[in-house]
């Protein structure tokens, strides 16, 4: 990992790894070919390998087919066309996490096991701390062994208070108490770490609902933002995950992690379109600065290998 890099080139290099295959693939298909059924089918394959999914791929290709079918097209043209379509779908969902001033913003971080909740919390905490906001972290994962220690270590490193309870303590009660204290101390943001849970575990999902209700007793508007963490290596199951989490807690948007690998995260295109929820950020590495604001143009461009490497945007 190289140390000093502009944020754009970092996201580009992070995402580029994930897009090399796609852009090369498109290059190989379109250098000398007419846009016919066979090429479209190859193109479909390539989009599918990015986890974009059969249905969304079909939608994206339909407009390409409608407007350009039978024409001689270059690699670049196809890329630009597809990118603009993807941007059209995703741009409305670029959004920053809104922090209201004058209140304690309650922000639970939720997701399935291993999606990167605690790591993302540490990144968000550092980001906000550096903006001069005051924070308190709640170690709400009282289930997994050493999960509390993991967050505490982060808290120590960042100089941020971590509220924790006994092992297997009730997360709802813990969150309630933490919010009470945070409100007293006029803390700007209360970030709540939650235990990873598979969405088909109804008992654990009900606990989320309970936590939400407990928080609402202190502030009916809580949670002010509820961020769901999505793992880019996950495939089409993300639809089922979001669908279920939404049923139990007011999900306000996503952060997609692990986009620095070779997983393409293309499923995000369909997700925002289907659930009409914004993407707050993407994770492209383990360091705090590896959490990037989500930008539809960059996402599409890097996915299709259109981004420039000169570090300007």
């Amino acid at each position, binding site marked *: 990992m190289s140390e000093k890099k502009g944020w754009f080139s970092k996201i580009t290099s992070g995402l580029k790894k994930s897009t090399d295959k796609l852009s090369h693939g498109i290059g190989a298909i379109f250098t000398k070919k007419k846009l016919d059924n066979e090429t479209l089918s190859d193109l479909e394959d390539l989009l599918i390998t990015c986890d974009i999914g*059969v249905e969304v791929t079909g939608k994206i290709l339909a407009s390409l087919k409608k407007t350009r079918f039978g024409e001689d097209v270059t690699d670049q043209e196809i890329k630009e066309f597809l990118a603009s379509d993807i941007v059209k779908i995703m741009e409305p969902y670029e959004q920053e996490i809104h922090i209201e001033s004058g209140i304690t913003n309650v922000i639970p971080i939720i997701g399935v096991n291993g999606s990167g909740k605690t790591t993302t919390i540490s990144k968000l905490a550092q980001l906000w701390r550096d903006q001069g906001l005051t924070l308190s972290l709640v170690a709400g994962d009282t289930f997994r062994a050493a999960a509390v220690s993991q967050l505490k270590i982060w808290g120590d490193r960042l100089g941020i208070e971590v509220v924790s309870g006994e092992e297997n303590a009730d997360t709802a009660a813990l969150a309630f108490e933490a919010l009470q204290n945070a409100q007293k101390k006029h803390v700007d943001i209360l970030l709540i770490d939650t235990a990873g849970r598979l969405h088909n575990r109804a008992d654990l999902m009900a606990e989320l609902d309970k936590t939400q209700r407990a928080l609402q007793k202190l502030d009916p508007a809580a949670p002010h933002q509820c961020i769901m963490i999505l793992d880019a290596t996950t495939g089409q199951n993300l639809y089922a995950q979001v669908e279920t989490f939404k049923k139990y807690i007011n999900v306000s948007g996503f952060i997609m992690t692990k986009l620095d690998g*070779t997983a393409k995260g293309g499923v995000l295109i369909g997700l925002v379109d289907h659930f009409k929820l914004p993407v707050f950020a993407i994770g492209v590495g383990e360091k705090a600065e590896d959490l990037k604001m989500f930008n539809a143009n960059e996402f599409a461009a890097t996915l299709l290998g259109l981004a420039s490497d000169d570090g300007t945007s």
Partner: protein
Amino acid sequence: MFDGLSNRLGVIFDRLKGRGALNEGDVNEAMREIRIALLEADVALPVVKQVIQDIKEKAVGQEVLKSITPGQMVVKIVNDHLIQLLGGEASPINLNAPAPVVMMVVGLQGSGKTTSVAKLAKYLAQKERKKVLMASVDVYRPAAQEQLEILAQQNSLLSLPIVADQKPVDIVRRAYDQAKKSAVDVLIIDTAGRLHIDEQLMNELKAIYASMPITEVLLVADAMTGQDAVTMAKAFDECIELTGVILTRVDGDARGGAALSMKVVTGRPIKFVGLGEKVDQLDVFHPDRIVSRILGMGDVVSLVEKAAEMIDQEEAEQLAKKMSKGQFDLNDLAKQLQQVSKMGGLSGLINFLPGISKFQDKIKESGIDDRMVARQLALIRSMTPQERRNPKLLNASRKRRIASGAGMLVQDLNRLLKQFQDMATLMKKMGGMGKGKGFLKNGLNNLLFR
């Protein structure tokens, strides 16, 4: 969505009925449906293509059209072929080396390595009667080593004492020495999560791998993994020769296409599946079950096992006895409802059932959801013990008391009682039927291969 695979194939073949020969175009259309089904189950594209090629040959050879239900015939061909690809039989863990047998667990961040290490240790300790030592060389994630230590303490397993600031290769050496000294049979090394393109960390794996003879190198991979499964598995396999895969989060509702992708691309067998967060929730891999899920045919076997795990055997037998005698009371109904919610609620159970997704919208419409179970439980809990044993006691005033105690209407209670009455009657009728297991097994066969 795609659990309609056999339905959709059925539609295609129905159209062809009476036309006789099956032409290339028809087969292609059917193959396209299979392709979509596999892709939606997250099977990687190169693997899908290979599978389609093989199946096409098989399907054409087998006069599919003459079968009464050609759609299902093709699904059966696909089913059998995928099982064959996954290796057919379960693949046992290799303990065939001089002690201490060293095993190493690798994978991406968040795939479930540490939990899997503890599960594997518990499995070897219990099923194979081995003395197992676990050692974490994850010096990167905060509290990772502590996590393994806690898991060891909680489950009476051994873990290597933590020495701060030691390098992974040195920890491994220390673990090996200690394993030898204290006559340990199996040493399991838990490595840090890493990206397969992180050269520095992949080199670290190589160094650990080269430092001693390692019998099992197991890749831990999430059953929810998408198309990237092939790239990731290949990269790990090329770096250090894998001997198998542990597939985690199989207790989720992902179709698990990644299992097929990884097996086909690396040729390494899937040895275990993780079925929950508890340390005893590890099971040997059964190819046929994953294939049912990939094809969206549900996973009835796992459902039955899940039930068996949650339901107290003795209690169940008692209940069965009561049922056959027609003595099923509201206490028993309450117990049943509790078990349903323990097993993930109605919505959790429904996901396991074959063919159910077609009806999911209908189920939603009919208002059957997990809250219904909770409400019924509340009603039963508002009754006195006598009333639960003998619902006949319930007169109008008692009913009013119960309904208001549960925060519901008398109509709700009446509905519950009616349901209970129907159940009791049904159970009396079923009292004469054979044992549950045979019934379920036949039921499964009927559902899958009619």
